[in-house]
């Protein structure tokens, strides 16, 4: 039984229509930044995106990557620190498009980013039109502090899964914890189930 805090009350109007925002989240108009280290800045001529762990490793330069078919994505995003942002507008390359060029039988993926960040995802969560490598935000190139030149976008999971500065996907047979997952955050991270920490 939770103790009632006298004098504590809802101060905000409901943020959105019922069912739009996962439990425990509040809506923000800002775009807060959370990351564990300095913002890496990789020049586009040195940037590549790779998929490893499948049959033949596949790699794209920035030019090759940007020549792939891209699509606009409008999605609500949910950070484990409890802010949600509605109707964010992105542009990116579907992970399906990238994986189409790789032979594999993997069940999981570990995303690797500049700066050493990693995060793990079941492959079925990054396929089927549910995940992108995003390079545009709100009609502009994605800013470095928000993960530019390119970040993972997996809006149906907590946003730490949408790895900033992503540079490769490692295909794996078994699930392996990434950076925050090693520090006690949930292996899957479904915001609708409030899977914030291990055991939630």
């Amino acid at each position, binding site marked *: 039984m*939770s*103790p*009632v*805090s*006298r*004098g*504590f*009350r*809802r*101060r*905000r109007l409901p943020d959105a229509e019922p069912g739009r925002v996962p439990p*425990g989240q*509040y809506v*923000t108009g*800002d*775009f*807060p*930044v*959370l*990351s*564990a*280290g*300095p*913002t*890496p800045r990789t020049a586009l001529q040195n940037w590549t995106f790779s998929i490893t762990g499948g049959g033949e490793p596949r790699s794209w330069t920035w030019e090759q990557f940007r020549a792939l078919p891209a699509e606009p994505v409008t999605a609500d995003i949910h*950070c484990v*620190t*409890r*802010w949600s942002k509605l109707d964010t507008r992105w542009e990116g390359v579907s992970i399906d498009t990238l994986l189409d060029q790789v032979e594999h039988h993997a069940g999981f993926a570990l995303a690797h980013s500049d*700066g*050493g960040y990693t995060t793990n995802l079941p492959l079925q969560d990054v396929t089927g039109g549910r995940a992108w490598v995003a390079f545009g935000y709100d009609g502009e190139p994605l800013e470095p*502090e928000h993960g530019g030149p390119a970040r993972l976008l997996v809006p149906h999971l907590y946003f730490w899964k949408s790895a900033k500065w992503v540079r490769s996907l490692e295909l794996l047979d078994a699930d392996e*914890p990434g*950076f*925050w997952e*090693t*520090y*006690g955050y949930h292996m899957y991270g479904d915001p609708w189930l409030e899977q914030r*920490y*291990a*055991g*939630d």
Partner: protein
Amino acid sequence: MAGTALRGRLTWQIAMVDTVTDETARVRTIVLDVPQWPGHRAGQHLDVRLTAEDGYRAERSYSIASAPGEPVAITVERLDDGEVSPYLTQELRAGDELELRGPIGGYFVWEPEDDGPLMLVAGGSGIVPLRAMLRHRQRSGSAIPARLLYSSRTLPDVIYQSELSRYADGVEVTCTLTRQQPPGWTGRAGRVDAKLLSEVCWPAAVSPLAYVCGPTSFVEAAAAGLVGLGYPPHRVKTERFGATGGR
């Protein structure tokens, strides 16, 4: 990046407020009696959950302000458009109960065994987890030399003012005031920029370990500045909070 994984479930438990202490006009430290606290490391945070009479609930994360081994304390800055921080800083009294769970996080932590001089850079209430590190250093008898560069708007906004002025024995505290400096101010003036960092921070050659905490724009500038001074990015650990004050 080997971490200390949190094992098992983080369960909610009821804590009782032991004391509340105003640090500044907008900032209050709340010391909590947490019967089942498993212990924490300097730099970790916890989640607080409040329940209103009508059943409405809100949760927020707060950095732990106390050192490992001390009673659990959080230091909360009131955000005028916030929901939880006005309650915690204005309504909450000693003897009240609230729910919490933790500790959470294992990357932005410091242990006396970590090598290299300690470089702490704080903006505003970003001082809170760094204060836990300084207290931990003191209590553990560590001889690791430490420097703190702490940016506040004005002198009355400086959190833990008297405590920070008492540190000696290998701790150098430098405060900078960005908006207004009182007459006779002997600290620094202006924002943390490349020049101030280069004058105050350990040179990269001594392999310092840096922790930067504050608002996003502050952390972006300070962390980039340290990398510019030659700090390897993996030796600069950051914690940011957005303008909306998730913290």
